[in-house]
């Protein structure tokens, strides 16, 4: 079942510069992807590629000065962009929940963990009172927090980063949503804790047949936990497909560079890694945005590349996708 369907999403920011001229940063430039029930999709890319922005847009959380001039977001068949704040509040945290980064500062510092889990249920009308407390405790146990009855009484500042992240997962799942969006859920955690937290998340998502969108810059996370992956660059999805496919036959030079820059892979694969920075979002070049960094670029790349389907599920936005694959 299709949960989330993002199509040709554009997001821009209008900012007034010091010279008082309004400049527009084009942060997303046509993002399309889908998440189905029971599927974990990875959204991967470098900082500033627009991963988190895509997640915020999907949750209906974008506020001025962000604008959506073009594109559509559908969740469970409903048009997110056409919804009022009131309607969005009923979906967020209920049907579609988010696990954010920086868990320690995201929990309400003045409320005990148990009370926050109960509030999450009460606000959305899923449970209240003793029932909500029981479910909160069961949820803490499900995210493998030891001694959940005692942890219900803990304050957020008494938790470690890994514990707090587990609490956020519990918060996200306590209302039994259909879709979980995890925005770099393990940034700032120790590597061993990262794996534990992600294992927990994956097991719960699997057991409940949820859809999940995992945002990360870590290809290792994608390889381990996702079935499909979408690679983002400069506000565009440059390649998407099943994880095994994309890793085995990356078709876009940016994907190849990403894979090649994984430590220990460079010599093995023989791809060329190019340096450089993402293009200036205030002054996007026409044509392929990766052109300046691409070892393969030709005059054909002055025209915007279409998504070239390599097979039914794997595609890349590159004029030379066929050659590379």
């Amino acid at each position, binding site marked *: 079942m299709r949960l989330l369907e993002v199509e040709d999403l554009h997001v821009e920011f209008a900012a007034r510069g010091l010279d008082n001229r309004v400049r527009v940063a084009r942060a997303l430039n046509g993002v399309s992807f889908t998440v189905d029930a029971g599927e974990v999709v990875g959204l991967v890319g470098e900082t500033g590629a627009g991963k988190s922005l895509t997640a915020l847009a999907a*949750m209906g*959380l974008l506020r001025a000065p962000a604008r959506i001039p073009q594109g559509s977001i559908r969740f469970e068949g409903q048009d997110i962009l056409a919804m009022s*704040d*009131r309607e*969005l*509040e*009923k*979906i*967020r*945290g*209920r049907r579609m*929940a*988010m696990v*954010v980064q*920086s868990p320690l*500062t*995201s*929990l*309400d*510092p*003045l409320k005990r963990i148990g009370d926050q889990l109960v*509030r*999450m249920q009460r*606000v*959305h009308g899923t449970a209240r009172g003793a029932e909500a407390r029981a479910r909160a405790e069961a949820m803490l146990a499900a995210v493998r927090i030891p001694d959940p009855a005692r942890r219900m009484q803990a*304050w957020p*500042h*008494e938790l470690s980063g890994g514990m707090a992240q587990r609490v956020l997962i519990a*918060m996200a799942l306590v209302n039994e949503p259909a879709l979980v969006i995890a925005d770099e859920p393990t940034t700032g955690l120790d590597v061993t804790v990262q794996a534990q937290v992600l294992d927990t998340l994956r097991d719960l998502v699997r057991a409940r047949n949820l859809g999940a969108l995992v945002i990360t810059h870590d290809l290792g996370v994608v390889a381990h936990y996702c079935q499909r992956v979408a690679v983002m660059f400069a506000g565009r999805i440059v390649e998407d497909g099943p994880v095994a496919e994309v890793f085995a036959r990356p078709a876009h030079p940016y994907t190849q560079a990403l894979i090649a820059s994984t430590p220990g892979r460079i010599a093995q694969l023989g791809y060329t890694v190019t340096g450089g920075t993402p293009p200036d979002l205030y002054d996007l070049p026409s044509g392929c945005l990766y052109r300046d960094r691409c070892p393969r670029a030709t005059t054909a790349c002055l025209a915007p590349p279409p998504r070239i389907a390599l097979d039914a599920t794997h595609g890349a936005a590159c004029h030379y996708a066929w050659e590379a694959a």
Partner: protein
Amino acid sequence: MSITRFLLRRLLVAVPVLLGILFLTFMLVRIGDQDPVAMLAGPMADAPMLARIRAELMLDQPLLTQFWGYLTRLVQGDLGMSWQGNAAVTKEIATHLPATLELVTLAVGIGALVGVPLGLHAAERPNGWFDQLSRFGSLFGFSLPTYWLGLMAIFVFFFLLGWAPAPMGRVSMMVTPPPVVTGSVLIDSILAGNGEAAWSAASQLVLPVGCFAIVATAPIIKHTRAIAIEVMGSDYIRYARACGFPRRVIRRIALRAALVPVITFVGSEFTSLLAAASLIEFVFAWGGLGHWGLNAILLGDFAAVQGYVLTLAIASVIIFALVDLIVLLLEPRARA
């Protein structure tokens, strides 16, 4: 940590602070070029008489000896004699302090009741029209010198319009003041069932409290706004939005989070206005501690100045301890 242990610790920490403040004040008044002896003795006094008075006041002894003498008497509850009123400093403080407390408490109370909601409202839409207006207003309140505000208020409301009573103290001279119970003339008159005195005391309060409240409100608006904006931009408010909490729930979380820093600020505002009260008291002939302390400074009344500064310092210590106690109750992180 238990509350008694907390208070005991605060008390212990306060002792060196108060000693330091006392030492500085003691030395500062004596380093100045004021000679209280000449002032006390009058213009007719000759050299032997000046020397005698100097010896009587022990001003001829080394500074540290004088300070030690002052401390030993202080421990016994004796703050020395005020030369201007020829009365014990402790007694003078006891008579003057309630007037100042009444003025400052009302002003800060009004400041908090008006300033906190305005600041919160301004923070709802940063740079919106209300925010701009309140920022202009609080800048206005910041920039006005208290005494000028007081003088203008007297000029307009007493002299021109005749709405306010003469700015001469806390109760009209035509009225028999009530017996002193709490020290606040208004409360004492109500306790004594003296309606006429209560009315007079209340009308005397309006102008000085009004002027002082303007001074108190401005920074409270400004800080509440800054605190609220910071809270609204915090991770946990953004997370609350991502959780789909409706506006009223988010507002409650934000209010609760802003409460502690706002209370802390209002507490520190109280202590600084306690000291700043002297000018407005002077303008309205209020006869409070600030008025008395200012006179003491002008006249070189050493013991009185020391007593004045010590009282302010003790008041600050008490208020900050109270604020910390409230914070301790409201903020789980502070209990850790």
